[in-house]
């Protein structure tokens, strides 16, 4: 006898479009290849346990019939002893079967997760720009979960289900074709009722999902913007709007769920009616004196029926689960198959550079949207080049091209005369350190975060770098000093402190070329002078590119480029540019005029 542990039937899934389910299935199965042997054994065990159920119940029926005919007793005990032994063995097998399947499915999931992550790691920057973090996260979590569930259910339910249905079906047919017909009819009715309910509730489910999405985004937005809601005394209006959505959701959900909550009882009832019919027809046959049916047969049949309709329902459910998981698999393979950021075949290893940088007629576009036009620039080793201009002018984009984060549309970027596209990326990025506008800190200790600049740096070097970046002071004030573990997104530090850490990271990297992208934007004015000092030291003997809003910090650059709309509109030294009395002068005046 099998115990049926079935959740509520999944009624509605998003409409799933499967482009290539055959190949997807094959690839997913590929992830199970490592456990081929174990799965084969499980299959064998399943056959045994199903056979045990069939035989056991038939024997029970025969035993019952023997009571009626007052058969010999000694045999009864022997038979019952054998049955007990078979059941015990069957339970042990079931245990191993489930244990193996769970383990295999978890291992396969871990492999899938690994493959997603390993590829994600190497994807080009463009991928991260164009894909929502939440969406990618959900592929690694929800979608892998879906596949894990499907793998476990497929084996447990599809395998045992199919074997049961075939085995039980055959056994039932042999026992009594008439009763089998009744059983099949009851399964059919259950299926039809489910379909009908699904159809009726479809619209309500769609409304429910829409209202739920709206509800959640209102909660998210208003809780995040709570301060503003309070300051503008807007609570009443906000809540009124929310309550309306909440009401819509509740009503739609009630319509949808009330309907589907009657499914369980209806299933239950059809089962009961099927039992009833079988008992009735069976009894009628016995009384009418038709051969073949005995009380034992009815008994056995009722239990077979339970083991027949249960798996059929499960398999019907499984169709949905499988569809859902195949859709998940496709979403996962999209990440796994996304083309990596690959070095060109002729890319060479470069270990040192003098730091001569040239941009030679560089054009750049995001897809078809042009961003940069004909950028030319030459920085000699050790020079400081400043890029100024309004937000969105393209300053950061120019610097992104230097480290080969994006492919050029036209032109070349050269490092010591070598096209950067022909240098191995790992080498190139080791030679050029970028201090970003919004530096990212990992939830590691401060020491480890700084050491990310160069994995081989010693503790003493870490401290030295922090001192140079004027970060040592605040680090030592933290409870655990350099071993303080940062919380996610380094919320336990101020933005300025995060900036200082990223400058320390740049110190430790000791790269010959340096890019400072608004690196001092969030450092408070108090320490800014000190940090500027430190930066001067950092830039010593290095080719450096500085992006700045505040012109005071870059007046002594060897070259200043004024960027506007993706073009270099002016270039020269501070004095030369002021003399031109053009865009730079205007920018300069807007900052200092008021003084």
């Amino acid at each position, binding site marked *: *006898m099998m*115990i049926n542990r079935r959740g509520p039937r999944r009624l509605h899934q998003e409409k799933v479009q499967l482009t290539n389910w055959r190949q997807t299935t094959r690839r997913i199965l590929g992830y199970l290849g490592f456990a081929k042997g174990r799965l084969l054994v499980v299959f064998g065990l399943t056959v045994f346990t199903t056979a045990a159920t069939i035989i056991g119940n038939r024997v029970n029926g025969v035993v019952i019939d023997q*009571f009626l005919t*007052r058969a010999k007793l000694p045999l*009864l005990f022997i038979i019952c002893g054998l*049955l*007990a032994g078979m059941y015990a063995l*069957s339970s042990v097998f*079931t245990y191993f079967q*489930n*244990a193996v399947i*769970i*383990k295999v499915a*978890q*291992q396969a999931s*871990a492999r899938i997760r690994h493959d997603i*992550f390993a590829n994600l790691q*190497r994807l080009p920057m463009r991928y991260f720009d164009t894909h929502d973090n939440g969406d990618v996260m959900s592929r690694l*979590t929800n979608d892998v979960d879906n596949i894990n569930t499907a793998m476990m259910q497929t084996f447990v339910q599809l395998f045992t289900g199919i074997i049961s249905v075939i085995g039980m079906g055959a056994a039932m047919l042999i026992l009594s074709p008439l009763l089998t017909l009744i059983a099949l009819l009851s399964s059919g009715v259950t299926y039809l009722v489910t379909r009908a309910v699904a159809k009726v509730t479809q619209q309500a489910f769609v409304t429910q999902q829409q209202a739920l999405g709206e509800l959640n985004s209102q*909660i998210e937005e208003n*809780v995040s*913007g709570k*301060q503003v809601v*309070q*300051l503008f*005394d807007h*609570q009443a*209006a906000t809540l009124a709007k929310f309550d309306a959505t909440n009401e819509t959701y*509740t009503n739609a959900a*009630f319509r949808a769920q009330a309907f589907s*909550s*009657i499914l*369980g*009882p209806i299933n239950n*009832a059809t089962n009961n*009616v099927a039992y*009833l019919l079988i*008992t009735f027809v069976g*009894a009628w046959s*016995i*009384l009418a004196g038709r051969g073949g049916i005995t009380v034992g047969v009815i008994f056995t049949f009722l239990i077979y029926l339970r083991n027949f309709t249960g798996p059929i329902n499960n398999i019907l459910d499984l169709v949905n689960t499988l569809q859902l998981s195949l859709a998940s698999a496709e979403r996962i393979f999209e990440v796994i198959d996304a083309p990596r950021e690959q070095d060109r075949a002729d890319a060479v290893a470069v270990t040192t550079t003098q730091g001569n940088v040239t941009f030679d007629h560089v054009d750049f576009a995001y897809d078809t949207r042009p961003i940069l036009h004909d950028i030319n620039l030459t920085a000699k080793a050790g020079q400081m080049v400043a890029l100024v201009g*309004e937000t969105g002018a393209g300053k950061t984009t120019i610097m992104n091209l230097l*480290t080969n*984060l994006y492919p050029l549309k036209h032109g070349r970027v050269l490092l010591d005369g070598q096209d950067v596209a022909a240098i191995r990326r790992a080498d190139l*990025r080791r030679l050029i350190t*970028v201090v970003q506008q919004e530096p990212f800190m*990992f939830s590691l200790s401060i020491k480890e975060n700084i050491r990310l*600049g160069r994995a081989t740096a010693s503790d003493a070097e870490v401290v030295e770098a922090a001192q140079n970046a004027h970060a040592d002071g605040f680090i030592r004030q933290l409870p655990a000093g350099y071993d303080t573990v940062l919380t996610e997104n380094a919320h336990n530090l*101020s933005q*300025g402190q995060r900036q200082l850490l990223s400058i320390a990271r740049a110190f430790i990297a000791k790269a010959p070329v340096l890019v400072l992208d608004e690196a001092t934007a969030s450092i*408070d004015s*108090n320490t*800014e*002078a000190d940090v500027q000092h430190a930066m001067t030291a950092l830039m010593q003997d290095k080719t450096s590119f500085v992006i700045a809003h505040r012109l*005071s910090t870059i*007046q*002594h650059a060897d070259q200043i480029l004024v960027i506007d709309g993706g073009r270099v509109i002016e270039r020269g030294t501070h004095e030369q540019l002021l003399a031109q009395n053009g865009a730079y002068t*205007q920018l300069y005046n807007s900052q200092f005029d*008021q*003084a």
Partner: protein
Amino acid sequence: MFKLLMAHMHGRARWCFFLAPAVMLVEVFSDLQQPTLMSDIIDHGLAKGDLNFVIRTSLLMLMFALIGVAAGSAAGILGNYASLHMGQKLRSHMLTVALNSRAAGGLTPATLITRITNDVTQMQNLVMMVTRGMVRAPMLMLGGMVMAVIVSPRLAPILLIIMPLLAVFILVVMKHSIPLYTHMQQQVDGMNRVMRENLQGAKTIKAYTLEDHQLTQFNQANADLLDSSIRASLATVPLSPIIQLALNLGVVVALAYGGQLDVNGVILDGQIIAFVNYMIQITNAMVMTVNIITAFSRAITSAARVQAVLAEATGEVPVGTAGNAPSGSAITFDHVTFGYQQSRPILDDITFTVPAGQWLGIIGTTGSGKSSVINLLTRAFDDYQGVIEVGGVDIQHLDLAALHHKVTVATQEAMLFSGTIASNLRFGAPEADQAQLTAGATVAAATSFIDPLPAQYEAPVEQSGKNFSGGQRQRLNIARAAVPDADILVLDDATSAVDQTTNAAIQAQLTKTRRQRTTVIISQRVTNIMHCDEILVLEEGRITAAGSHDALIKQSPFYAQLVQTQLGGGRYDD
């Protein structure tokens, strides 16, 4: 937890909540009749060849089946009604508390959001469970045992031995597995964190070629997760085979023992069959109970998390006693000290006055307490010492609403809401007409990007305003504060993402429209505050200097240095 549920179910929902289990009892009762009736058919109908009896009893069985389906459906619908309406009330209550409580209570917005969404769903599921499974499973179990004993008292000892053993076994397995599942959840969080950081820090990872480092980290997290989830799942694997075995052995024993009795004419065949059927019902109910207990333990965690949010409701906003808002717009801080630790206050003995219509600038480093001044002025916190007055009235005596109509703030973080530009600008002034919107946008130098939009002021704003750039959001943020044309306007570092040219334009517009408005500007940039009538220099929570720009250059070395680094000279040449 029960109290929490009751507090959010009123009227019809509460009726449904109590009615559902009662109706469910009817379904259980009908289900329990079936095996007995079937045994009657066999023992009385078949044995005596009484076809009429068979037909009559079959019809009775059909009737019970129909009663069962009706009662079951009704119970489901009632339970759904109670659960969904409880959820509706609870969500609304939580959001109300979240929006009105002033201190965040240590909960980040992300946690709050999860609690209002996921945890409320968990509570809804709990109500469903309570109304259905909590009655159905134990009742089926108990009723099944009672019926089994009534039908065949001779076989009852089998049940009395097997069921307690099984119950103990289930309890042991569950007790063992719950901590394992908790541990697994922690590993899931850990893996998600590595993943999330990898996505957020993609550029940093590329800049420092950290790909291999990250992969190692991930592999570790992934291996930990694999290990803990296998251990957790394996812990519950024995449940189903053991329950099956108990049931099967029970049946075998019933047959062997019952068969012997039967032969001796003490027991009838139908009774054995009925007994076996009750055993199946009872074990099914046991499996159901296990599922319910698991779900219940999850719901308890959720309930605690929900309650923590609702606890914020205590310490609610006091109602003002001053009656009407003051007409004046002067601001006075009189010896104000604020901070959680006495030894290191965030604000230390702050005293200043801004006469009506004047401009005050506040400059200082991050963490110097600049924003705290505004938080106290807008009564985000009340636990300060000293007196703060607006228009000559202690703000403690003012209604929060009245105060917030008097003082509008452009916050540091430019938070916009989905809707339109107009709906965002009307946030503080629902009745504002187009002329007022345009005036507000003009002050914020926002017309230059609003006007070219196809729908202009009716242009859609997506969630959190993400369809606008940082600089544009900040300008709309300032415009929103300017639209109500309140007597006091505060700009709390509100132009940090705005480029210099636009910043200058905003400053110019503010000056042009200053009229009689009292204005407070907080900034780290000298250019933003140098034209104020009075400038406060804040260092570590204290006012270290105050005066006009020209006076401060001479008086405050700190200020002089700021001017030096930000405006002139530069430091690269020394």
